């Protein structure tokens, strides 16, 4: 019987290009290259160092830390093969609602009667109140995202787009568009100084460890890699997706609390476009939009690249409009690079 040697569809023979080269190294190389470009441009254009300025570096990392907290959750969602567009709106809703449970009763020696819950007497509440309210909101939003995606099979893009619009609506409805301010000292402390960076670091390290060393991580990668296979192996795919989206929602809520505390005021428009920045950080850091691949370390490097680019352009006094355009181009370039990589590995045609 004649047998023909056929190449099994999705299993190209190992080639040199598929050697063990962690995506994180690409991101690290990119970070170093971009930082060096700004350093050289800095000396040429402004006659000053870009990197050797502690204050600039501090501002840079502070700027990206809040979105970095979101990106930790978004990374996990993308690894499962999904996407979360609702993060920025969850930041808006949690910041304004949590802030209204964190207002002082007295401002400049006078009763602060503009407080949202003044008539209920809910002012000067203990710090755990706004935190619990904020986290519960994020949990609820993430739970709804996850349940919609897992049980009704709505594409993640659509389900979280719905939450994006809804949560923004809630943020505006809460105070009919009014900003909420005058937070208690303990609430201000959440985002004071380098606190956002510390909170980000704790969350990022925690989830890097969880993704690497626990069942949760194993399931997250398996589902992104082969959902049908994961189900056949006995993984409850639906329940796990709900958990991943819930965690992403809660991390957005943490970012909302930090952002509100830092700004000393909360508005319905807070966090607009944060979701896209967070997705961009992950993709730049080598997290594949197809699912199954990526790490928090990669996203952290993506976050730093993001920070270097923003503060680099500001340092070179490039107009904010151009910054936005260049940022957009970088996001598209990162996605194109991801598709190209997958193509080379024979995953997409």
């Amino acid at each position, binding site marked *: 019987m004649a047998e023909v040697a056929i190449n*099994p569809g999705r299993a190209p023979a190992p080639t040199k290009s598929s050697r063990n080269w962690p995506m994180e190294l690409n991101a690290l190389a990119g970070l170093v290259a971009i930082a060096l470009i700004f350093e050289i441009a800095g000396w040429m254009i402004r006659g000053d160092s870009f990197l050797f300025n502690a204050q600039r570096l501090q501002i840079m990392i502070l700027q990206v830390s809040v979105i970095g907290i979101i990106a930790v959750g978004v990374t996990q969602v993308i690894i499962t093969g999904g996407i979360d567009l609702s993060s920025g709106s969850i930041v808006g809703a949690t910041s304004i609602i949590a802030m209204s449970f964190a207002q002082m009763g007295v401002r400049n020696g006078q009763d602060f009667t503009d407080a949202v819950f003044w008539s209920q007497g809910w002012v000067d509440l203990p710090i755990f109140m706004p935190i619990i309210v904020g986290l519960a909101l994020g949990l609820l939003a993430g739970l709804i995202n996850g349940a919609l995606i897992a049980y009704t099979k709505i594409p993640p893009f659509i389900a979280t787009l719905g939450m994006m619009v809804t949560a923004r609506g809630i943020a505006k409805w809460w105070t009919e568009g009014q900003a909420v301010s005058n937070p208690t000292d303990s609430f201000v402390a959440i985002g004071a100084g380098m606190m956002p960076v510390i909170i980000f670091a704790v969350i990022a390290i925690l989830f890097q460890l969880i993704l690497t060393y626990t*069942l*949760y991580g194993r399931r997250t990668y398996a589902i992104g*890699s*082969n959902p049908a296979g994961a189900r056949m192996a006995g993984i409850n795919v639906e329940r796990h997706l709900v958990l991943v989206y819930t965690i992403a929602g809660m991390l957005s809520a943490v970012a909302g609390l930090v952002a509100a505390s830092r700004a000393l005021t909360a508005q319905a428009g807070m966090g607009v476009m944060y979701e896209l920045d967070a997705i961009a950080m992950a993709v730049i850091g080598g997290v594949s939009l197809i699912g199954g691949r990526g790490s928090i370390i990669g996203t952290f490097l993506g976050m730093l690249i993001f920070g270097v680019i923003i503060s680099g352009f500001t340092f070179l006094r490039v107009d904010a409009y151009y910054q936005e355009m260049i940022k957009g181009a970088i996001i598209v370039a990162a996605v194109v690079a991801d598709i190209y990589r997958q193509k080379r590995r024979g995953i997409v045609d």
Partner: protein
Amino acid sequence: MAKTILKTEGLTKHYGGIQALVDADFEIKEGEHIAIVGDNGAGKSTFVRQITGVEQRTGGRVWFDGNEVHFQGPLEARHAGMECVFQNLALADDLDVPANLFLGREKLLVNLGPFSILDRRGMRKATEDGLRATGVRIPRLDYAIRRMSGGQRQGVAIARSATFASKLIIMDEPTAALGVQETAQVENIIRSLKSRGIPLVLISHNLRQVFDLVDRIVVFRRGHIVANLRKEETDGNDVVAYITGVKTQNTASAMI
């Protein structure tokens, strides 16, 4: 006399008006390797799907390891000790070999629900043992499955089944997508299962392979079991005659 590991009586499956499987009587004993052959649409895969609980049968009875069973899904069958290597492998491409071998039944160091800490070292060690026992050679265990050849992937899938199957392995066309050399590798792995006494039901189109690997050949045709042949008492032409319907046996059963 060896113990019967799997037995079916009158196993039947209708899809609407189509009778995909009719009154299949089948039996496999401990240590036995049986091939199921037949043309496309003869009912081979339907038969396997009813046994493993991937689908629910229209009628008939199934006994596994001495108990009458009605598996509601492949997971239940797996828990009972019956492993199935599916055509599409069901491996997670981005995970490495130990992660795939233990997918869905990870060894844990500390049980914390979904956040339980994995026993990575233990799983790696057990993977090395499992691969060695099955004769599967994989150059690097920490490589993602994506980077392996078709034969290596099939090897991992079979090793996964062999590591956990306490009672029976079912393979649906394990070499259909493989080249000559890789097919030979997989066949060697299947031989090693025989020497370990693990019973096997092998669905295959490749008669050369069937005659090489099994003790008994069961022929399906149009939803019926039309022949139950000892390897020594038959040959390729004979089997083909049954497959195409040129020849029929009087007893439409695969009992021993």
